[in-house]
């Protein structure tokens, strides 16, 4: 009898990791074949990456030639900027990864669960795939270029700067991946996911504003002099926190603190290993836990459906409202403007207009999600196509909801801003606040009209409502650019209002209250136009939109 056939050898770990990296790029190329917009997005991303690298390199070279040789005060300033700014940058990167880029829905650990890949190899493969992406490569090359800034500080500082670049990218990526994995573990219920998503978004916005807040609150009475002593104390503390370790390396080398340098390098490597271990633990735990139990909240009535007009547009209003309340992906849009009012109040140095200007543009921000509204509906938009709903019913149904929201929102925001600025105490303050609120409301009507139009022609993938932290292939690129079309249009269509403002500024600014009726008329006109055009586009392109949404759904799987 013949000898038994031997079992195939287990694949080498390095082979599996290399396969996963190749898979990542295969999926990217496959996504490019899906639509022209994906190609546009990737090309723009690549151009932006090259631009960033060239910009950083040029900035570093100019910086050195303009300021070298560095004096001690300059080095302190550079030190504080790099350590504090870099720390905030790493936090910001993690939050961006968590909220806007997310865990790739195509390269998630769950997708590999059937293959029996050891957890450590799987995590290593996912990390390696992430490191080969455009963002990581761009960051690494840009930080390499930036390390030229340390060249006047000596060869040791320059070499430490190059090492710092590698370790910074490694730490930021590992930390982001670990947080993503943990987020998936912490938020196993829908309400948990929603809450974490909102909290993380708030932290993201605050961290983006932190440098500005720190600088604004660190200046002296003249508004220019910085309290360097306090700043350096803060730098020292930040330098011994995880996000500051890598940015301290060039300065450790410059000051001859090689013991501290080696300690920080060791700490960074240990931190990356800890993040890796955390990701491995999360994967193992997820396999053992199974599907999470969802809460069984019930709603005894038909809710908003009982209170809307008794027609198709009314049904769409009710559905839009109900959906918005339960959708964490869009809920953040309603928190951001309030957050900005508070942040600008902190940075205003007592100038009320710095705070009131938020109301002029917050409508545009509120509607970024609605400018891609059909993508958030996803394949469920098919219900309207199945029922033969007219485009104008859909557009007016959605518009009605946002109009209601804006009226309440602007009233509350105006009340908050009056309270924060104290403008309610004077007549001129009341007039200023009222004009800003009404003009802002008018601009938000323009933005709403634009959103109702653009959502029928420029769609990009969004995470599914069940996985707000995931990121369908191609989303990051499109989300970076498509909203600009809507925002730019909103600004351009507000031309009657800002042209009137310019004219009044040069002629008789005392009549600036006239901007209120001008902005309202401008807003109502553009709203009607946008909704009418959007309805027409929906009638003409409804089935094509449905096909696009089907393609997006396949990217979410």
């Amino acid at each position, binding site marked *: *009898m013949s000898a038994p056939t031997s079992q195939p050898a287990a694949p080498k770990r390095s082979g599996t990791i290399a396969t996963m990296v190749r898979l990542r790029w295969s999926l990217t190329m496959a996504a490019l074949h899906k639509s022209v917009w994906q190609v546009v997005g990737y090309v723009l991303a690549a151009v932006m990456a090259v631009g960033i690298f060239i910009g950083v390199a040029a900035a570093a070279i100019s910086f050195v030639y303009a300021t070298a040789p560095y004096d001690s005060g300059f080095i302190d300033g550079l030190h504080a900027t790099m350590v504090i700014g870099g720390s905030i940058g790493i936090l910001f990167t993690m939050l961006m990864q968590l909220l806007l880029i997310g865990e790739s829905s195509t390269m998630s650990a769950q997708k590999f669960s059937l293959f029996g890949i050891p957890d450590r190899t799987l995590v290593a493969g996912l990390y390696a795939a992430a490191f080969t992406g455009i963002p990581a490569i761009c960051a690494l090359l840009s930080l390499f270029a930036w390390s030229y800034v340390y060249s006047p500080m000596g060869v040791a500082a320059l070499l430490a700067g190059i090492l710092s670049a590698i370790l910074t990218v490694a730490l930021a990526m590992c930390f982001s991946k670990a947080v993503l994995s943990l987020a998936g573990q912490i938020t196993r219920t829908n309400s948990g996911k929603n809450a974490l998503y909102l909290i993380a978004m708030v932290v993201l916005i605050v961290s983006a504003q932190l440098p500005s807040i720190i600088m604004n609150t660190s200046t002296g009475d003249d508004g220019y002099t910085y309290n360097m002593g306090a700043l350096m104390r803060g730098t020292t503390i930040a330098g011994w926190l995880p996000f500051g370790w890598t940015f301290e390396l060039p300065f450790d080398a410059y000051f001859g603190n090689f013991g501290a340098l080696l300690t920080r390098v060791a700490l960074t490597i240990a931190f990356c290993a800890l993040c890796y271990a955390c990701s491995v633990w999360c994967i193992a735990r997820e396999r053992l836990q199974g599907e999470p139990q969802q809460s069984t909240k019930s709603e005894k009535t038909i809710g908003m459906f009982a209170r809307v007009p*008794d027609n198709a547009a009314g049904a769409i209003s009710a559905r839009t409202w109900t959906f918005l309340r339960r959708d964490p992906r869009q809920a953040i849009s309603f928190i951001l403007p309030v957050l900005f009012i508070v942040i600008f109040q902190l940075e205003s140095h007592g100038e009320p207009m710095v705070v009131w200007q938020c109301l002029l543009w917050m409508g545009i921000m509120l509607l970024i999600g609605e400018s891609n509204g059909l993508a958030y509906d996803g394949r*469920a938009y098919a219900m309207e196509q199945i*029922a033969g709903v007219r485009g104008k019913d859909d557009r007016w149904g959605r518009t009605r909801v946002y109009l209601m929201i804006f009226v309440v929102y602007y009233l509350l925001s105006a009340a908050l801003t009056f309270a924060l600025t104290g403008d309610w105490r004077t007549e001129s303050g009341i007039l200023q606040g009222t004009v800003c609120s009404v003009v802002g409301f008018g601009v938000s009507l323009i933005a709403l009209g634009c959103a109702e139009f653009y959502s029928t022609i420029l769609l990009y993938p969004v995470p599914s409502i069940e996985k707000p932290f995931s990121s369908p292939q191609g989303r990051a690129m499109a989300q970076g650019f498509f909203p600009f079309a809507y925002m730019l249009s909103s600004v351009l269509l507000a031309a009657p209002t800002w042209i009137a403002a310019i004219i009044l500024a040069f002629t008789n600014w005392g009549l600036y209250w006239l901007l209120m009726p001008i902005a309202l008329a401008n807003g109502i006109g553009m709203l009607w136009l946008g909704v009418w055009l959007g309805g027409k586009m929906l009638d003409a392109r409804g*089935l094509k939109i449905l096909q696009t949404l089907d393609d997006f759904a396949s990217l979410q799987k």
Partner: protein
Amino acid sequence: MTQPLHQPSVPPAAYQPAAVNPTMAVSIRGLFKRYDQKIAVNGLSLDIPVGSFYGLVGPNGAGKTTTINMMTGMLKPDAGVVAILGLNVWQDVNAVKRLIGLMPQPDQIFSSLTGRQLLVYSGMLRGMPRAEVESRAKDLLQAFDLVEAADKAVSEYSSGMTKKICLATAMIHSPRILVLDEPFEAVDPVSSANIKDILSEYVSTGGTVIISSHVMSMVQRMCTHVAVINHGQVAAAGTVEQVAAGEDLDERFLQLVGGRHGAMHLDWLNGGTSPQQPADAQPAQPPRTPQGGAQA
């Protein structure tokens, strides 16, 4: 009756299909759809009588779903004509959609709504008065055994419950034609039986049901008519008895779509045992030393 497959002899632009039959629930002539290089539906013609329980069967990729989508106004054909109760679908697609009830797929509904809200939404989208919609929703929830789950989000339903609520959304406006794409896929037997009973009652009131399915036994048991679709064309169509032609419908289906392949012998599929050993043999013992004992 069995219809021979034919190649389209003219490009879609010049194709002049024969006139539709206005007495039929659905009458299709020369339907054609191409995706890039692949022809999904290839000059398909079909008549579906009023009051029939019509099964569309075919292998994966045969063109059933594409045909259903074009029939119901959800996908524009490249060529051909579809008439629903005598109305040309693509001349006034919204009017036709009000006559038919197309069952959405489970991922084509707003699952964050409760079952009751979803039914009300579906009815109001079609212009029905709210009070009437609420009343019918209550009846449908009772008929589909969904009363206890009526006020829970659809996302919490099982797959069987989700299919039932999807079917209910297609029925709320009392259409005369129900179109269901794979309604029993991933549905438990209890829910399947519930759905079948409701569909049978619907047909008994004069409605027409069109379903696509892979489950031939269900088609044989429930359907009055069947069309076998293969490579985007109708391979056979008629009553179940006509198509079966005295044989088991399963076997007849396999004959029409090309039959079974001979199973390919995969040497490496034996889990590491000798290729000569039969499949139910004990796994081979590891080889012992010459002094030890039995040979492998």
